[in-house]
């Protein structure tokens, strides 16, 4: 679903080239080539989820920072309170404004550059996210959404991804026209919906000093969750979600097929032919021919179903598959290592 830039894989070479201080992006190109995050932001996001987001809920928050050349530097963030039913009078905008004002007062970066969200097993491609990101990107050109996957992180490695909408999708969203023709014209496939922006983490010197201190003082033992061989639970859940989505997808396809069938039935020339025959008869009788009305004026053509849903589902399925494959690759590697060790023992 994302035209994956290779940044996340190539730790050294990738961002070395992407970090080039180029000019502003050319038309059609994305304005942000790299996202640079402070350690502070990463840990705040982790903490927010840990404290407030157990279970299936997503936690959200706002990212603050600056744009430098083609790099988006995120230096701070603050969390957003959860929505509950008895908070109907809670004013989101006011909360945000207050927070930003206070932060500005103490000379912290307060410029809004994006938002973050946690996800459950990678299921974040929803209409809500699309709408939110569209309004963000519409207002702020370079905004990104950071997706934090806590379950994957708990398995041993931080999973944080930054996404933006492609310019093509932005155009389509602006028109608000999601019919099949419009999407075909814009040539959008599910891979072209989101684009992933590579992330780097950067800390200041003082923070590095603090981290050295922590390393000395913290007595927490090193955990090796990454090397654990137990994988069936995680796989089972991911596959369950994938199956649900595939079911939805098949329903969507059935709907689209019925639509196509209706359209073709209507466009069959039966009515037209009858009209023509009648006209011929009338001509033979010497009467003026009836006007051959346009078929569409008589019968309303069936509405084409909006294609956005199926695009989203396809995108979501793609994400699931990518995640599952990544997970499997890791586990295969671990299993082969275990095999090698066992052979050595014997």
């Amino acid at each position, binding site marked *: 679903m994302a035209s994956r830039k290779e940044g996340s894989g190539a730790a050294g070479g990738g961002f070395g080239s992407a970090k080039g201080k180029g000019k502003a992006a050319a038309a059609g190109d994305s304005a942000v080539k790299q996202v640079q995050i402070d350690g502070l932001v990463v840990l705040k996001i982790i903490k927010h989820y840990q404290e407030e987001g157990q279970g299936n809920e997503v936690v959200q928050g706002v990212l603050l920072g600056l744009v430098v050349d083609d790099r988006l530097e995120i230096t701070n963030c603050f969390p957003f309170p959860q929505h509950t039913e008895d908070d109907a009078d809670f004013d989101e905008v006011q909360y945000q404004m207050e927070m930003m004002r206070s932060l500005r007062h103490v000379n912290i970066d307060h410029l809004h550059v994006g938002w973050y969200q946690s996800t459950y097993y990678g299921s974040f491609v929803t209409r809500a996210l699309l709408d939110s990101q569209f309004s963000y990107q519409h207002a702020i050109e370079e905004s990104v959404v950071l997706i934090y996957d806590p379950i994957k992180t708990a398995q041993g490695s931080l999973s944080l991804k930054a996404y933006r909408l492609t310019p093509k999708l932005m155009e389509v969203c602006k028109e608000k026209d999601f019919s099949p023709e419009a999407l075909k014209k814009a040539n959008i496939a599910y891979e072209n919906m989101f684009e992933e922006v590579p992330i780097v983490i950067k800390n200041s010197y003082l923070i590095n*000093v603090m981290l050295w201190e922590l390393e000395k003082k913290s007595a927490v033992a090193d955990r090796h969750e990454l090397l654990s061989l137990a994988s069936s639970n995680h796989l089972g859940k991911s596959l369950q979600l994938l199956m649900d989505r595939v079911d939805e997808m098949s329903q969507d396809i059935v709907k689209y097929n019925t639509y196509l069938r209706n359209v073709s039935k209507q466009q069959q020339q039966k009515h037209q032919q009858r009209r023509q025959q009648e006209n011929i008869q009338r001509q033979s009788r010497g009467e003026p021919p009836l006007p051959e009305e346009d078929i569409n004026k008589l019968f309303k053509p069936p509405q084409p179903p909006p294609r956005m849903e199926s695009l989203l589902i396809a995108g979501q399925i793609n994400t699931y598959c990518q995640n599952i494959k990544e997970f499997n690759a890791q586990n295969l590697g671990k299993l082969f290592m275990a095999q090698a060790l066992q052979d050595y023992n014997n």
Partner: protein
Amino acid sequence: MTDVRLSQLLSARRTQPLSLAKWRLQLPVRLLPRPPRRRVRRRLPPPRRGALPPRPLRPRRPRRPRRRPRHCQPRSRAPSPEAAWCGCTQSCSPPSWTASSGATRARRGSSGRCWVRAAALPCPARRSLGGSAPLSRCPFLPLPPAGTVDKHSVEVTNCFSVPHNESEDEVAVDMEFAKNMYELHKKVSPSEIILGWYATGHDITEHSVLIHEYYSREAHNPIHLTVDTSLQNSRMSIKAYVSAPMGVPGKTMGVMFTPLTVKYVYYDTERIGVDLIMKTCFSPNRVIGLSSDLQQVGSASARIQDTLTMVLQYAEDVLSGKVAADNTVGRFLMDLINQVPKISPEDFETMLNSNINDLLMVTYLANLTQSQIALNEKLLSL
């Protein structure tokens, strides 16, 4: 029905001159026609421009019980008030001086132990506003153990900075601001209360006493954290204090700051985050990227390999007599060896093969699904 009632009323009031207005006033409310009950539908407020888009409502989730803090050791009063204990507080960016404060959960033992939790979230160093105020004070919000008040330890989980001004003889802290920020923070995590305050700098001054006094009104027995960003002794020492009155009662009274132990505590995921962030210490321009899947497995196994080499080296040293044998270490080593499960080769083969088959099948299915949806896209665009 109304007529009947009206006539009754009229008959009842026959003695008085009836004017329309009068008996209208005296009509019991019930006689007036009941307004039709309209179902008031709540309209969603229109989306505000330039604001965050409204989020879909989520069902209310049950609050999970808060964790209880671990018990700490019995009290030990260290005599020197100068010894500063620092605890890292989270996400503090003091306004004036360059301060990098770690965001950690400091579970501070008022007795001796302080458990610092979470990863240190250092704040980026900030330019000093005026250069005059060497210290910045900020209150911090800890996570108190809900329900139980543990006398010996306190957990610090969050913090925010508060602007202040300091001159020779007076200090002014913006309390309104502090209250405001606290209210905002409470909206997100309603169970956090103010535990104390932090300051950057390596020492305690008279101003600290004043501010501490203020905060003792806000919180019971407030904690004072100092984070030494001037890197005295080439260390960023983080220390915590609690105040105790001292002096001769009735005559000169003073305040003594007794130090506390600071410990760092992490959530698991935070630990992973901190490990990742720590890698920037080793990179030349302090930048790291996020690595891909197999790379992570590789680095994790490299770490284990290093530790194993260390252990082997130690064993060899002991055997060759270079290092004296230590029984505890020996016992740990025994446990380590015994933890490797003994499985017969056939059983292991079957287990391995079934796992590998599962994984391969799932990979195949995932690829199949992906090609399926790609095909679907192509067909639709025909």
